[in-house]
């Protein structure tokens, strides 16, 4: 199975980082993977996305034309990528930031009020990790347990105090999916 994930939103929402954590988890599982950021002149506030491919087979192009997983954290990103999603794919929408609904009917959609959940947890900047938790819980593209290990490796010693909060955010995303299923 190959998971081709695009994570998109504004710069500063931590999209490149959540992609890195996903990629690291895949590395820990010894899967094939690639991580490719969009890069532009703006450092903060501009549109931003990254493409993460996790696969059992060697990765060809790291550029994703038709993602089967889309995570969007602003409306322009939903507008831009909705039509590119492969039929049968899954779209994760931060419903506290995006008012509209997904128009496609041939994809599965998870609406998750990640930014609100993060604010309630007093971890406003960790909405990205909440959605990442939801993605891995729902799709099992990587073993959700490996996300913790990946976070421990990715978060620099300087920000070690943020590790627990990140773990909590991932867990909140996973719990969100579990509660929907029950």
């Amino acid at each position: 199975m190959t998971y081709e994930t695009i994570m998109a939103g504004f710069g500063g929402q931590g999209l490149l980082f959540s992609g890195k954590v996903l990629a690291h988890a895949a590395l820990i599982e010894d899967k094939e993977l690639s991580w490719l950021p969009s890069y532009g002149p703006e450092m903060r506030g501009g549109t931003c996305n990254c493409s993460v491919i996790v696969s059992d087979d060697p990765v060809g192009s790291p550029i994703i034309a038709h993602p089967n997983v889309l995570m969007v954290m602003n409306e322009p990103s939903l507008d831009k990528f909705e039509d590119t999603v492969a039929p049968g794919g899954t779209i994760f929408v931060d419903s506290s930031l995006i008012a509209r609904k997904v128009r496609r009917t041939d994809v599965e959609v998870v609406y998750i009020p990640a930014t609100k959940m993060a604010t309630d947890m007093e971890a406003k900047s960790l909405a990205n990790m909440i959605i990442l938790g939801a993605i891995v819980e729902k799709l099992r593209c990587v073993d959700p347990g490996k996300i913790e290990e990946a976070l421990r490796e990715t978060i620099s010693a300087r920000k070690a105090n943020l590790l627990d909060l990140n773990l909590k955010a991932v867990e909140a995303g996973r719990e969100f999916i579990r509660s929907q299923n029950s």
Partner: protein
Amino acid sequence: MSEKVLMKGNEAIAEAAIRCGCRHYFGYPITPQTEIAAYMSKRMPKIGGTFLQAESEIAAINMVYGAASTGRRAMTSSSSPGISLKAEGISYLAGADLPALIVNVQRGGPGLGGIQPSQSDYFFMTRGPGHGDFHIIVLAPATVQEMADMTRLAFELGEKYRMPAMLLADGTMGQMMEPVVLPGESVDPETIPATKPWAVTGTQMKREHNIINSLYLKPDELERTNFERFERYAKLEKEECRWEEYMMEDAEICVVSVGITARVSKNAIVAARKEGIKVGMIRPITLFPFPKAPLAKAAEKVKGFLTVELNMGQMNEDVKLAINCSKKVAMCNRVGGMIPGADEVLAAIRKEAK
């Protein structure tokens, strides 16, 4: 056995260079390769190496010239507009037969161009970037693993043939992360100058002075140095051509592509094979020397070639030359920072299969 780590292509180059015994990096910031400088600025001071942000690309390449003159493994990195500025220094390195590593993470041009990926420096690099009759070794990695492996290869080939060597990547290769196994055994930088009796390390009053120079005012002398250099290039072509063949056993169409477009092409080839189209790929890994022989061999059995590139058809010409225009060489290209999707490449393959 070294472990697999996750790194950006740019960072993999930097770490691999350090493990190869490179302790002298001189650079100037430019997107999309600045991670190399940033990485070096962190690591070099901790291992007794030099990271120096030069006043310009011109100064940076000349600092490399100085460090390389002392026999050390030295490097610089830049992106297309910066490489234009370095061209003078590269010509001097070639003229003085100095090995050094230059990394070019290409972006769109001409002029200031853009910052998105490109392969439009192909001619500029493969024809010897600068004035005069010369070449440099040009390596085109297509994975982060190759970014690391070819850093070592560039140092080693450069020293073996006394030539500057270039890693010619594009913005995608520099920015993407993939698992990579870095060179395990580190080279002791102190051992390298001793292997270069021509280096200017001070005579210690024990030998005649060494001179690093590219000036020959006597035409017959200058001609001799040019001839001698091109003999080395011929040997390089004979012994060091590298390429990858992918699904070529029964191929009727041969895609030729490097770097990121080779990866996009692989996806397209897999899709075309599902449609029953017999297509394969020859991916040149060395661009100078260009792997003419495998292309000429392929020309004997395929119907035609298709180059997939991020320029207006620069490598296309080299393929035509390699096969002596014996078959059609079609092209699928995007420029300016655009990258063709696998769908576009697939459509081009279908067209040639008809």
